[in-house]
């Protein structure tokens, strides 16, 4: 028996081993060069007129919104995630409108998502129904976001949920916008305030509650619309850097020149980033220092 194996082995042309070995070598090389580092990465993905934010810590990923397009989000994710990683630990939909959730539907189709978090406000649209249906069909853990919750990422990195309040907003200029999920991500001295599409009403409510808003980086609410980012809110958050997630040409006139002016005046010309101008904006931090990497 053993003799036979030896005989077979000696008859096996050795040069046939070369292609599989080459493939293995290339794969190992690509895998090593795509290995994640130990820093925290927060990327504001360029998905056009909408929001999509990816938080990466080691091989953990949190995706916040997916933008308005089914294709762009997947291209962006593929660029940021190592090629073997097909799992997203947490998906957060800050609100059910199409410019936040459309991309998430395709992500649910393609990746294994462990848990979803969303405000759960009443909203009727075919895309939101489709998203809910997929979450249910796939048996993904589904939680409602409410102020006071905390997500621990380990290594002293945590995410606090600041909005929506336990009693959802009702009768505001837009309840869907104001009940958006607001998150504060912090590690060491560095923090990020992610404000979804909330408007003045929710901003003033957050100020009134004396929520912990002060942050290094502010994701400007509602694509820089003039409905949000009041001077008072900006004063309380007191950011050093602002990011506006917005498409180059959009029918809403976002971002409002007024808001951009307000931000530039306060933070300085070169501290305001726009996904429409800079492409994907990636922040890298170890809790002490903060690096920014822009696409253009």
């Amino acid at each position, binding site marked *: 028996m053993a003799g036979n194996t030896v005989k077979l082995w000696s008859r096996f042309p050795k040069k046939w081993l070369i292609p599989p070995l080459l493939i293995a070598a290339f794969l190992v090389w690509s895998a090593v060069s795509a290995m994640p580092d130990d820093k925290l990465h927060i990327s504001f993905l360029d998905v056009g007129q909408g929001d999509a934010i990816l938080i990466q810590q080691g091989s953990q990923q949190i995706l916040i919104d997916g933008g308005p397009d089914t294709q762009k989000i997947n*291209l962006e994710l593929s660029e940021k995630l190592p090629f073997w990683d097909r799992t997203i630990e947490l998906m957060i939909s800050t609100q059910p409108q199409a410019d936040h959730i459309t991309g998430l539907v395709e992500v649910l189709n393609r990746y294994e998502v462990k848990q979803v978090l969303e405000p759960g406000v009443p909203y009727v649209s075919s895309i939101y129904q489709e998203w809910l249906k997929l979450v249910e069909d796939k048996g993904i853990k589904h939680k409602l976001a409410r102020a006071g919750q905390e997500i621990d990422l380990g290594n002293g990195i945590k995410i606090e949920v600041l909005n929506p309040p336990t009693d959802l907003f009702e009768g505001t200029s837009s309840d869907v916008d104001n009940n958006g999920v607001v998150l504060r991500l912090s590690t060491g001295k560095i923090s990020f305030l992610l404000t979804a599409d909330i408007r003045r009403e929710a901003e003033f409510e957050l100020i009134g509650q004396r929520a912990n808003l002060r942050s290094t980086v502010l994701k400007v609410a509602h694509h820089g619309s003039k409905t949000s980012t009041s001077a008072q809110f900006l004063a309380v958050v007191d950011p050093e850097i602002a990011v506006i997630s917005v498409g180059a040409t959009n029918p809403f006139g976002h971002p409002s020149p007024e808001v951009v002016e307000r931000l530039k005046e306060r933070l300085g010309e070169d501290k305001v980033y726009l996904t429409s101008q800079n492409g994907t904006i990636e922040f890298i931090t170890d809790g002490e220092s903060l690096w920014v990497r822009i696409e253009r």
Partner: protein
Amino acid sequence: MVAEEPDLRGSYCLVTFSANEVTISNESEEVSGTVLTRVSRYPAYHYGDVLKLNGELETPPQFEDFDYKGYLAHQGIYSIIYYPKIEILDRGKGSKPLQWIYSLRESLSVSLARALPEPQGSLAQGILLGVRSNIPDSLNQAFSRTGTAHLLAISGLHVGIVIGMLLSFGILLFGRRHYIYIWLALVAIWLYALLTGMRPPVIRAAIMGSLFLTAEYLGRQRSAITALAFAAAVMVGIQPQILWSVSFQLSFLAMAGLISFYPYFQTWGRRGIAALFGAREKIAAAANMITDGFAVTLAAIIAVWPLVAYNFNVVSLVGLPATFFSLPALPAIIVTTALVAFAGLFAPIVAQFLGWIAWLFLSYLLLVVQGFDALPLSSIEVSTVPDWPIWAYYVALTIIIGFINHKEQVAGFFSKLALR
């Protein structure tokens, strides 16, 4: 009823709908005809869904640079409805085999999407299944600028590789007895053609492939040009409008180019190699492979470039080297993505591991195409080309082919003339 699997685009989808009843101001009338509808991406509709559409029939618009109306008319579609109100009356009313094929196609494309990152995933869907809607526009353009778009379109090359795989598998299983492997391959060709959406190049390849297989079965000689002409005759006979389809034209010209020029280029190339490295056998063999590769590409390019310039307003200057470097990856891509797609149906974990190998080859293809695309002067954009130079080019080409194929007769004719 939804007559075909809907064509998914970024944020909308196109549904071909065959109507059997129209109600205008409460008066119903039985009708027959197809209409194209543009609907939002979700909820998803499928082949065989019976729908009630409420909207306005419009004549397709004519754009400045694109005859959309004519394009649709060639497919037998004369009206379009934008975002109608839709009510689903029933599902699964299409023909069962078609329904099965379409759902298989969708499951395969989903398992590719799940196992591979982007744009490798959509590239795999395009190359293996002919699902091209997910391929980003920038990538599509990179392929056409580098003259490698034919790798994306499922054609004879793909069918050939699939058949080759199945034949060797069939021979391994059943041996050469009873010609079982031929029947197997015949069935497989047509299943693959159905699976990839029955586009003209695939049908052409399937007809030619079937003819070759039948020739093998009957022990007859094979003639490529006869098979090509037969395929063209059958397809035009069934659907005359197909003559105006660009993919039909490209597919036939490329094949005709291969048949007419490749043997000559190959001989010339080999002669050159023999003159250069005559004595050193190993080098000569390797060099032969390389020149053969260039010969194939050159033969096809000579036949199609004016038509590509006419239709897509681009002439690629790197088509020859780009194709030469990307072509070797194609069989590997087809084999590995096929394994990934099928494994994904049963064992997603296995599909993911296999996906890494497919990823490697797909990434190589992307590297080659994007690399050549990034070169300065990789392509020239041409403005609208008038008809007559195209015609003149092809007439000249035909005369040259006729001349080199019948060199002796022509020479004989002239010598006779001289003798008189």
